[in-house]
């Protein structure tokens, strides 16, 4: 018998899941996170550090939140004002959740959808953040080997959340910049057919609306056509609406909950919403995820599965109190949208002045930046090269489109809501310096490349023509995790 090496023995002792890399964190994109981790920007202590623009967090309204918490000590079960509830809350582990929590969350979901629909608190099922919600929905709706259709580009974390422990496949629905990355019926049908040919039974379509990474919202007609598509095929429609309240300007968010009211023969057993307070309220640390299903059986089963990721009762209590304060909630949503709009405008105005394109969109905590004309060749290798320059030389951690499974190289997701105004100014200044250096380079007479030339200069040229050539079988690396596992506590 062949003796196994110690490592191989180890691998055999553990599950394939633990020994494999289905978690998706072995990707090259970790360079960006590492670069930030090793040298994080600070306006005073580290003015040359890497600015984190890869983290989709809403940090613009923390002051409002903090103020409310300080003014409402009864919302905590630890303060003198709230401790009389301590023992009741501390023993509460019923997976139905605190009724007042569910009611408050249902109300909040209604407000963030402009009160156009009603949500039933009895359909609210808790989960460990939207991360837990997605995995739970996948466990409920699909068997190992089944597939979900997902429009590209999509949130890199889906590769882990939907696939890792469930064994479910993701089948991309390719969207193109030529029509603003809108989801077309042709693309859906093509993806459905691809799955069929690959022997992957399709169980559902997962959309993120508003979109991550695009920041766009789906219009009513598009949503209706998606509902009709899934209804006709008899497959599920899962709508991740985690960015529901991040619309600003004239953008309107239309929830799938609204649209199903307008599709009379819609089979509601196929409709499910994933939600969370991590983006709209800026509370990712509290792990408040929600599965909202119109299918009674799914509600039942997801609720049983929620035992694996219940929301801490201490947090349920706080959130119940906070979200029941309707004046606070209305004010919070209003101010949050204004601040998002302002920060978005700051970034996009800056990019406009530098001639850098971005996808027109009115939601989310990021923009989808177009750097296709900076690619040496229209390939993902070139995108990676450019990305490394942006991370290591320009010192901005942004997310390359390839990590989001974008079909076309050259797009980058750039977050804007996780920094203050001064940091944004600094980031824009760095981009300005970078682009002007590139212009200078392109105007110089061509010289043979010397070894002394900095690598970033040799890998770039400004192209004034659209000479994109799409390589077939482009390399699409695994996606990095949505938040850096390398982020150490600052607390």
């Amino acid at each position, binding site marked *: 018998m062949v003796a196994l090496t110690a490592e191989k023995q*180890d691998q055999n*002792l553990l*599950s394939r*899941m*633990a020994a494999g890399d289905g*978690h998706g964190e072995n990707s090259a994109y970790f360079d960006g996170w590492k670069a930030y981790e090793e040298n994080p920007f600070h306006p005073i202590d580290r003015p040359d550090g890497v600015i984190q623009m890869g983290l989709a967090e809403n*940090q613009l309204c*923390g*002051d409002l*939140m*903090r103020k409310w*918490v300080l003014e409402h000590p009864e919302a*905590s079960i*630890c*303060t003198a004002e709230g*401790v009389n509830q*301590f*023992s009741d809350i*501390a*023993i*509460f*582990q019923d997976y*139905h959740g605190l009724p007042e929590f569910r009611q408050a969350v249902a109300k909040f979901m209604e407000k963030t959808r402009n009160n156009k629909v009603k949500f039933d608190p009895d359909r609210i099922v808790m989960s*460990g*953040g939207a991360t837990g919600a997605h*995995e739970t929905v996948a*466990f*409920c*709706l699909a068997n190992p080997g*089944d597939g979900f259709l997902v429009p590209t580009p999509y949130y890199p974390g889906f590769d*882990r*959340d939907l696939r890792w*422990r469930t064994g479910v496949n993701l089948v991309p629905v390719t969207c193109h910049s030529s029509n603003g990355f809108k989801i077309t019926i042709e693309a859906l049908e093509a993806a459905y057919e691809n799955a069929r040919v690959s022997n992957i*039974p399709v169980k559902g379509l997962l959309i993120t609306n508003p979109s991550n990474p695009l920041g766009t919202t789906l219009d009513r007609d598009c949503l209706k056509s998606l509902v009709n598509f899934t209804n006709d095929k*008899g497959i599920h429609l899962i709508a991740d609406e985690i960015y529901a309240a991040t619309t600003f300007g004239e953008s309107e968010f239309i929830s799938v909950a609204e649209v199903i009211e307008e599709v009379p023969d819609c089979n509601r*057993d196929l409709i499910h919403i994933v939600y969370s307070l*991590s983006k709209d309220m*800026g509370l*990712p*640390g*509290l*792990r408040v995820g929600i599965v909202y299903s119109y299918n009674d059986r799914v509600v*039942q*089963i997801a609720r*049983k*599965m929620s*035992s*694996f*990721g*219940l929301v*801490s*009762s*201490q*947090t349920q209590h*706080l959130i119940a109190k906070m979200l029941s304060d309707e004046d606070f909630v209305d004010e919070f949503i209003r101010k949050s949208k204004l601040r998002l709009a302002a920060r978005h405008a700051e970034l996009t105005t800056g990019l406009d002045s530098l001639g850098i394109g971005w996808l027109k969109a009115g939601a989310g905590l990021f923009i989808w930046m177009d750097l296709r004309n900076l690619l040496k060749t229209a390939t993902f290798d070139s995108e990676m090269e450019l990305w490394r320059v942006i991370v290591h030389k320009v010192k901005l951690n942004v997310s390359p489109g390839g990590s989001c499974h974008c079909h076309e190289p050259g797009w980058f997701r750039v977050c804007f809501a996780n920094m203050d105004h001064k940091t944004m100014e600094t980031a824009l200044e760095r981009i300005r310096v970078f682009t002007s250096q590139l212009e200078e380079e392109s105007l110089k007479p061509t010289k043979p490349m010397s070894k002394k030339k900095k690598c970033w200069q040799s890998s770039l040229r400004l192209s004034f023509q659209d000479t994109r050539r799409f390589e077939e079988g482009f390399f699409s690396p695994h996606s990095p*995790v949505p938040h850096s*596992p390398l982020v*150490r*506590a600052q*607390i």
Partner: protein
Amino acid sequence: MGLLSRKATCNTHGQDSSYFLGWEEYEKNPYDDIKNPDGIIQMGLAENQLSFDLIESWLSKNPEAANFEREGQSIFRELALFQDYHGLPSFKNAMADFMSENRGNRVSFDPKKLVLTAGATSANETLMFCLADAGDAFLLPTPYYPGFDRDLKWRTGAEIVPIQCTSANGFQITKSALEEAYEQAQKLHLKVKGVLITNPSNPLGTTTTRTELNHLLDFVSRKNIHLISDEIYSGTVFTSPGFISVMEVLKEKKLENTDVSKRVHIVYSLSKDLGLPGFRVGVIYSNDDIVVDAATKMSSFGLISSQTQYLLSALLSDKNFTQNYLKENQIRLKKRHAKLVSGLEAAGVECLKSNAGLFCWVDMRHLLSSNTFEAEIELWKKIVYEVKLNISPGSSCHCNEPGWFRVCFANMSEETLKVALNRLKMFVDGPSSTSRSQSEHQRLKSLRKMKVSNWVFRLSFQDREPEER
């Protein structure tokens, strides 16, 4: 093609078992000393409600922690954003220290080997995902916590093969029982990946002996498999022989830093020792870096709320508090346990001699009409419907001998316990269950038929309460 997954339509979640009938009845008719004095008393809930006042008192003396402040500044904002799956360092440090304290500081725990999870429920499932492929098996000594059927098997596809323990030796785990279980798994063509024990045991309330731990370590060493020790009740040991953690035995046998030590994993939680099940605080401790790494990534599906991590890091870092708490909690548990035991004795009912846990393993074999599980369920239904006590039948814990019941004592006031014990005494002193009249037998039969059909109907349409331990 089915609309839902197989996992959604099967019943491996285990929540359709007869065990839940008692829960349902309690929910419909819960005891309240004033409002509903004839209601059902909940004795199926392994919760520790005896020591909240100690925590509340700590909170009143520590307003900074209570108010999410540090040095006068609110840190709510930082907490709100903190979602690093490595967890709050101060919390992990405090947890590692607390675990050591629970073991008399005879072993120390490295915070870097700790993984935070949403309760022990999630910790156990996560370990299964890390150690077993679908179809692999873990050996578990019976009787065991009914929730394991869901936690270890449901979404993981793993199997459980029982290690049969009997009252002949106080349900201790023997070498031969281990071997038999392993052989049984082979017969079923199941690859055994490890053994999982609960120490102190649920439902027995006993600590695992050094001899048993030695057998277990030898066994897993020879078979090259894992050993998971769920030590969730480690802080509830209230009298001798005292708690011995598998980590201590590893140390004694000088097996630290060996291959075997990498296959020993501990699960812990604050749900029982501190009585905080609502906060969802679970922990995996492993000496295997790959397991720690994989489990940490998997914890993304159930992180502990940062708000809760912060509060508990402050609480557990206060050594004065933890030392006093552990001591006082044990004193209270011991007293309450003694009350239950003497109350049962007065009713002529014995229980397994125990030194830990929040329950007793009660011997009602002499009250069975026959030595069968049917008779056990008959007796159990009587206790639920007539005596109005919700207790847990041994069959729900996969006990292989009928007649044993788990009865909890730490989730109610002393007065309620008295009422419960009176009811039981009256029931036992009444007509003997071994000389039932014909009419009584008929009555029971029709009671059973009616309740079972109602139960089946209800189970299809209603949710169940989550299982407690």
